[in-house]
């Protein structure tokens, strides 16, 4: 461990991002109404961060700040994807926000701040840094959720999000304090070392682990810690929903990975059963409740919960009878799942935003009626996204489910795999219903949909990727597996 060096250069993406945010804020000072530069300014900042990320090595692991921050292949991959997800969100939401008179400067700088928080989480190698990043991200997101303060619904959702999110953070912090008590250190790699050498107080440590897992489950939205998800998804304006539902899931994966796989793989016997319960409950509740929803965003919220169940299945299938040889592949498959999930979600909520107009939110399922006649292209993209979420080949979502199933079966839990696929049959129903509304029904509202060119382009690329990655999923699966393997040092 290079204790002596700060290695500031490793943090160049974060630094550029922060400087960019400051410039954005300053340039807006005193003229909040001015729409100078539009979305382009924020994209420029993102491009800078991207440029700084690309040269980072994808084969070596380096640390900065005396080992508190880690930069490895996993962090590089996740940050790249997070930048793309946030960038796509900004483009898709630009007109939506203008129509609703959301102050653009505030929206963009808060979105970028939450991205900065995600960067910190992704690179955290120390429990305190994990918490720091988490709070930076969460506070920005709370503020984003409350940005439309004249809307009662939105404020209600923001309050719910804040209270429950704070509770989750509290859980996590409490768990961390117990881990500190049990292991005597906050550095993640040292925790792993002490677990191996048996220098931990098992009882305190296990209790801390319970809180950590509960906190993570809150952030992911796994049952029974899921109640905030439907309310927040439904209540916040769609652009903000997307910022909450998209990239933060990547960061949540990162901290779950750093904490459970890197730090506490030795305590697998404690966390594996917990994840199992969470996964099974999420699959059941998410899929079954989604069927009853009439509100599109609420339905997608429950679908998220069920997708989280799949992610957890991947995570827990890495250790078989104490043998952690499969851990890298299992977490790799979870990573692939979450990446495909995030990008499908960006597209789905993107479609919802494009269908909304000033003073009209396309929220209920009925708003999708006859979309194929109003705008065949958007309907086609949505069709691809829905079948991807349902896990029907040749969409990329199929491979995501496929490698999770593979991982679960190879862990010897064939019945769990059968259970999971049977629930994806249930899931197919409500995704099919969306396709049915778009294609089989006559439109209730015949006004054509005219999305701005930039947003249409992003959406088209998104849809094409869902299909192309479905035809040739090899490279992305490979990148995910390699990143996790290298991060786990195996």
């Amino acid at each position, binding site marked *: 461990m290079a204790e002596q060096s700060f290695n500031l250069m490793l943090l160049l993406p974060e630094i550029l991002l922060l400087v960019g945010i400051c410039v954005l804020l300053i340039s807006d000072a005193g003229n909040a109404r001015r729409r100078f530069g539009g979305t382009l300014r924020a994209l420029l900042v993102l491009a800078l961060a991207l440029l700084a990320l690309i040269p980072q090595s994808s084969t070596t692991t380096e640390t900065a700040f005396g080992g508190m921050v880690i930069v490895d292949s996993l962090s590089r991959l996740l940050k790249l994807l997070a930048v793309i997800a946030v960038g796509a969100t900004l483009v898709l939401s630009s007109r939506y926000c203008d129509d609703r008179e959301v102050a653009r400067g505030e929206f963009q700088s808060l979105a970028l701040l939450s991205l900065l928080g995600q960067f910190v989480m992704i690179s955290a190698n120390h429990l305190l840094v994990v918490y720091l990043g988490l709070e930076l991200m969460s506070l920005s997101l709370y503020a984003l959720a409350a940005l439309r303060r004249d809307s009662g619904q939105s404020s209600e959702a923001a309050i719910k999000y804040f209270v429950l999110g704070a509770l989750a953070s509290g859980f996590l912090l409490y768990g961390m304090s117990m881990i500190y008590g049990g292991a005597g250190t906050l550095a993640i790699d040292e925790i792993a070392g002490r677990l191996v050498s048996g220098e931990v107080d098992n009882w305190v440590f296990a209790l801390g682990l319970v809180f950590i897992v509960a906190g993570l489950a809150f952030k992911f939205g796994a049952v029974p810690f899921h109640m905030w998800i439907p309310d927040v998804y439904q209540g916040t304006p769609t652009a903000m929903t997307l910022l909450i539902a998209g990239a933060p899931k990547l960061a949540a994966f990162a901290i779950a990975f750093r904490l459970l796989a890197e730090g506490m793989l030795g305590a697998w016997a404690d966390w594996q059963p917990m994840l199992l319960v969470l996964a099974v409950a999420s699959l059941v509740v998410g899929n079954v409740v989604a069927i009853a929803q009439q509100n599109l965003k609420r339905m997608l919220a429950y679908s998220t919960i069920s997708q989280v169940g799949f992610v957890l299945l991947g995570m827990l299938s890495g250790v078989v009878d104490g043998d952690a040889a499969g851990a890298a592949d299992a977490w790799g498959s979870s990573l692939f799942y979450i990446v495909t999930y995030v990008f499908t979600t960006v597209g789905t909520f993107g479609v919802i935003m494009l269908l909304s107009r000033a003073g009209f939110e396309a929220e209920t399922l009925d708003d999708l009626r006859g979309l*194929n006649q109003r705008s*065949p292209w958007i309907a*086609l993209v949505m*069709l691809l996204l829905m*079948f991807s979420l349902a896990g*029907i*080949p*040749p969409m990329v979502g*199929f*491979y995501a489910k*496929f*490698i999770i*199933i*593979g991982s679960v*079966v*190879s862990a010897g839990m*064939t019945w769990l*795999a*059968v259970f999971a*696929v*049977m629930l*994806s*049959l249930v899931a*197919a*129903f409500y995704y*099919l219903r969306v*396709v*049915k509304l778009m*294609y*089989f029904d006559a439109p209730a509202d015949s006004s054509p949909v005219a999305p701005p060119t930039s947003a249409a382009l992003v959406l088209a690329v998104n849809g094409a990727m869902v299909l192309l990655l479905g035809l*040739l*999923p*090899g490279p992305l*699966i*490979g990148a995910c*597996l390699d990143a996790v393997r290298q991060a786990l040092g195996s």
Partner: protein
Amino acid sequence: MNAIPVLSAAIWVPIAFGAFLLAFGNDRNAATVRVIALVGAILGFLVTIPLFTGFERGTAEMQFVEQLPWIELLGASYLLGVDGLSVWFVLLTAFITIIVVVAGWEVIESRVHQYMAAFLILSGLMIGVFSALDGLLFYVFFEATLIPMYIIIGVWGGPNRVYAAFKFFLYTLLGSLLTLVSLVYLYLMSGSFSIIEWHMLPLSMKEQTLIFVAFLVAFAVKVPMWPVHTWLPDAHVEAPTGGSVVLAAIMLKLGAYGFLRFSLPIAPDASQELAGFMITLSLIAVVYIGLVALVQTDMKKLVAYSSIAHMGFVTLGFFIFNQMGVQGAIVQMISHGFVSGAMFLCIGVLYDRLHSRNIADYGGVANTMPKFAALFMLFAMANAGLPATSGFVGEFFVILGAVQFNFWVAALAATTLIFGAAYSLWMYKRVIFGEVANDHVAGLGDLSRREFGMLVVMAVMVLIMGLYPKPVTDMTDASVDALLRHVAASKVR
């Protein structure tokens, strides 16, 4: 190895045309769309011709093999090839696609480009199913066929189309999801997705049984076998004519083909063990569903039930494990592709004119549509298994095979000749003969040149296969023989 990737061309030519139509078609250029779709379908058929002319008879080896790396990480490759078991289905699919495009020519008026694109893409995907030799690739094609069919039934279907489309999709998905788990299991056991390697993989009896059951659920739903057949009458009745034709002529064969490619060779011991069970299910389909068909009042439903009964014959042929049975089953599948396809086309012809499928709404059609009545007669006879039509050959082979196996099985199976004749000809009589039933029938016009052309082509195929089935059996012989020898040899670990 072949210089020209025939199978890839057969898969991707129609898909490319379909994608092109999807991208550039709209309701204003419908006339051009139709022409392009026809060109795509014909081109898609022409590229499959080398499969017939260049097929080496007398060997069970895979031919026209193509292999490209696909997902190396998972050991899956883009591996295509055909043998005697599959080659005919590739040809059949490409052929039927032309008919379907022609059948939808004037009938479909709204969103023509999407309709044509869905069928062309579906055609490519189904050829993919028949020619994939990689388990994952097979599954991708197998599942992907659901999407265009779901759209076809739901958008251009009848009044109850939404229910039928959902039932079709979810029923079939239920079966294939279990298959997915067993594919994953086979991959983990063998380290590869190659179906040929899976054939050689030794498995314990318990593993074989579970794998067999998982495959059975998928393929039985698709065939469909009694008692998981209930989606088919709904789907057939609600689907537009083209959809019914593709469903009956090809999609049902995907399931039956699955038995030949997966269940029998991968789990031969379990297949032997459970043959009695399978034969029982098949006989129930033949006898019971035959009786159900008899009482239908809706023509499409009647043909749908008769399809189930005929497919019962196919599965019966598979599980009596002799040359005659399997050979006959394959002939029956191809013949059924033509006959049931033609039956649905005929019903479509009537439906386009009167917008009714009720037998009771017709009567005396022979007086107003003589050409139609003659052709319809031929197909109804073929459906009943009259000698000299293709329907006879397959059924006769299977019955011969069944006699070798067990006399009583054969006797029960042979009742199909009675029931088949009863429901086909009785329906024919009520629709075609008698006095002109009402003013609507009196006003019927005979076949247009387009309709006449497509029905005559089908009729020629039915007769050729009935009079001279040797080209078919020549190509399937060696593969059936090899399959049976493989199934007879135990591979219990």
